């Protein structure tokens, strides 16, 4: 099979991939904290609201220099966080409403400012939204004698800054994200950390937006962190995984964009979304499909154990080692499956037209019936439920009683018979 490698990056396209990967990694790392602090939409808001900051900086300084724009955007980003909190407190509006009011107003203002100066600067609202990553290699600067694109330089710097911030303040960030009140009580002001984090978010947005556009910034601030959150339970591994997912999405997005000949930023966002979808469906612990399969397996296990217990009770009535047990034909698919399983794992075997428990099956059946009767006895002792109400509850629990729990139940009830006078099978 020959594979057409025309979508593989070549020459200066590697710079595009590098810029995208750097931007995605930086956004993913800082964004993970936004996701965990339930501030994802503040990242979204900031990435929109930096537009007027950039436009103002341009109008005041009259140039497209980096520093005024960076400062303007930082100011706008922090203003978003501050104004949102202020409106929330003063007007007692919900956080989502305050956020919506602030960022949409600021963005509208920014679009108007840009329209105003449109003839003097090449900065149209469209390229703020989806960026111009395709043009990254054209704008280069010389560092240590090597020509590298300006965007790559900036993005590397911001990635390093973000990583330093996260590594140096890891303990404080973790505590204040998990329990802000306690963090403040211990002397790490949650407010200070919040605004520090917002500063880094704004700086990351600024560095990233020019090359990759604000929509990719939104996608990358939220999606990799959320995906990683589905896949792991520790903060450090979440951060590493988020960065990895960001870089992967950048690379896959680039290939996809080249395949379809369309916007790189757009396809990278989609790739991040697909990563999330995949994790949401298939994550080993929390995936939707995974849980669904697990439930199905559980249902089959319960059906199998119910069959086994029923056979054991019959065996109890006439305890000869290889007696033929008569069973009704299976009534449901689940039951049929359960019988098939029992024969496959050699818990029962067929003997002249009926079934018989093998020693292994006998042992397992005894364990289930033992759990059932222990639980009935326990309920009877601890509640004043009448006898005819014990069975149903026990029937549910019997499948979940571990050997350990059974031992402790047995110790607690101190009985050899259940409340109905039937023997509790010994271990």
């Amino acid at each position, binding site marked *: 099979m020959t594979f057409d490698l025309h979508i593989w990056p070549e020459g200066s396209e590697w710079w595009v991939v590098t810029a995208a990967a750097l931007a995605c990694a930086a956004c993913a790392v800082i964004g993970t904290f936004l996701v965990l602090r339930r501030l994802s939409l503040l990242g979204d808001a900031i990435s929109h609201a930096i537009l007027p900051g950039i436009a103002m900086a341009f109008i005041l300084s009259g140039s497209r220099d980096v520093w005024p724009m960076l400062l303007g955007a930082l100011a706008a980003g922090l203003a978003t966080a501050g104004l949102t909190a202020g409106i929330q407190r003063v007007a007692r509006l*919900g956080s989502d409403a305050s956020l919506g009011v602030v960022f949409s107003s600021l963005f509208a203002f920014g679009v108007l400012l840009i329209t105003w100066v449109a003839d003097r600067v090449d900065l149209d609202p469209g390229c703020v939204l989806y960026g111009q990553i395709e043009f990254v290699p054209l704008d280069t600067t010389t560092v240590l004698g090597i020509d590298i694109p300006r965007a790559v330089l900036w993005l590397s710097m911001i990635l390093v800054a973000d990583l330093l911030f996260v590594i140096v303040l890891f303990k404080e960030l973790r505590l204040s994200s998990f329990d802000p009140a306690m963090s403040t009580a211990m002397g790490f002001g949650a407010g200070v950390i919040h605004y520090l984090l917002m500063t880094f978010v704004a700086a990351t947005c600024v560095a990233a937006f020019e090359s990759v556009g604000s929509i990719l910034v939104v996608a990358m601030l939220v999606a990799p962190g959320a995906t990683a959150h589905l896949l792991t339970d520790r903060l450090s591994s979440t951060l590493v995984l988020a960065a990895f997912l960001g870089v992967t999405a950048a690379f896959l997005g680039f290939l996809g964009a080249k395949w379809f000949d369309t916007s790189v930023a757009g396809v990278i966002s989609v790739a991040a979304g697909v990563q999330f979808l995949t994790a949401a469906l298939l994550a080993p612990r929390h995936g939707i499909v995974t849980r669904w399969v697990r439930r199905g397996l559980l249902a089959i296990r319960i059906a199998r154990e119910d069959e086994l217990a029923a056979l054991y009770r019959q065996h109890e009535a006439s305890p000869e080692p290889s007696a033929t047990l008569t069973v009704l034909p299976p009534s449901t698919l689940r039951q049929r499956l359960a019988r098939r399983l029992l024969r496959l794992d050699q818990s029962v075997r067929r003997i002249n037209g009926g079934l018989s428990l093998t020693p292994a099956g006998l042992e397992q059946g005894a364990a289930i019936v033992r759990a059932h009767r222990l639980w009935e006895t326990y*309920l009877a002792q601890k509640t004043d439920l009448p006898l005819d109400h014990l069975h149903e509850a026990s029937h*549910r629990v019997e499948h979940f009683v571990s050997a350990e729990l059974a031992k402790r139940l047995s110790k607690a009830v101190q009985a050899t018979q259940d409340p109905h006078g039937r023997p509790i099978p010994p271990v």
Partner: protein
Amino acid sequence: MSHAMVDAATTPVGARIAIELHDVCVAYDRKPVLWDVDASLPAGQLIAIVGPNGGGKSTLLKSILGLVRIASGSISVFGKPVRDVRRLIGYVPQRESVDWDFPVNVADVVLMGRYGRLGWLRRPGREDRRIAAECLDMVGMTSFASRQIGQLSGGQQQRVFLARALAQESTLYLMDEPFAGVDAATEAAMVEVLRTLRNAGKTVIVVHHDLQSVQAYFDHVLLLNQRQIAAGPVREVFTSSNLQKTYGGRLTLMDEAAQALRLSDQPHGRPR
């Protein structure tokens, strides 16, 4: 059924049954699990549901209302499934379930009690407003009618919610901790209202957390802690031995079994 007969013996002859709980088990994510509640709550009485925090009191109330799905068993209200008799039930939810910043005033909130009777599309009319005003008067909150609901104190809010339940003109009232965060005077006034309801033949079921006042306020009690400890007339059931069982700590083995059931949804939940 033998169990029903036991109950019939302990309740006054001829009393109707308001709520029949039959082998009710409730299990939901991370919330307390109720094992096997089985009781008949008589009509025309003041009934308390008592037990420690996390013992499943609110959960039971919500399952009676059909707001929480029960895992097994059955519940009937006046002999019918809840959905057929909703219009007969008045409900006072816990305070946290409400958005206190919502732009409604006290009169609006009480008027909401009439919505169930109005049904789709119809607007509350003059008669509904009159009834709402009467109910507001019964709880002594008429002078606050035009205040925004969030501007009241906790006790005043509870009184307004009681008035809203009254405006439903129900025969059965379910109240989730109506006395929480209420000062003593308000509590006394609210109890007076509950007694008036009872004397008018209504059934009032209250989730209650104050053991001191159970005997003074209520006729019938259901003691709950994960499972039903006892149910019956207060003078018979509200004994120190039953209370000890109710508050004597959780049964660790029962907790562990509940944990195992819940873990069954997790990958590493040990299968036996």
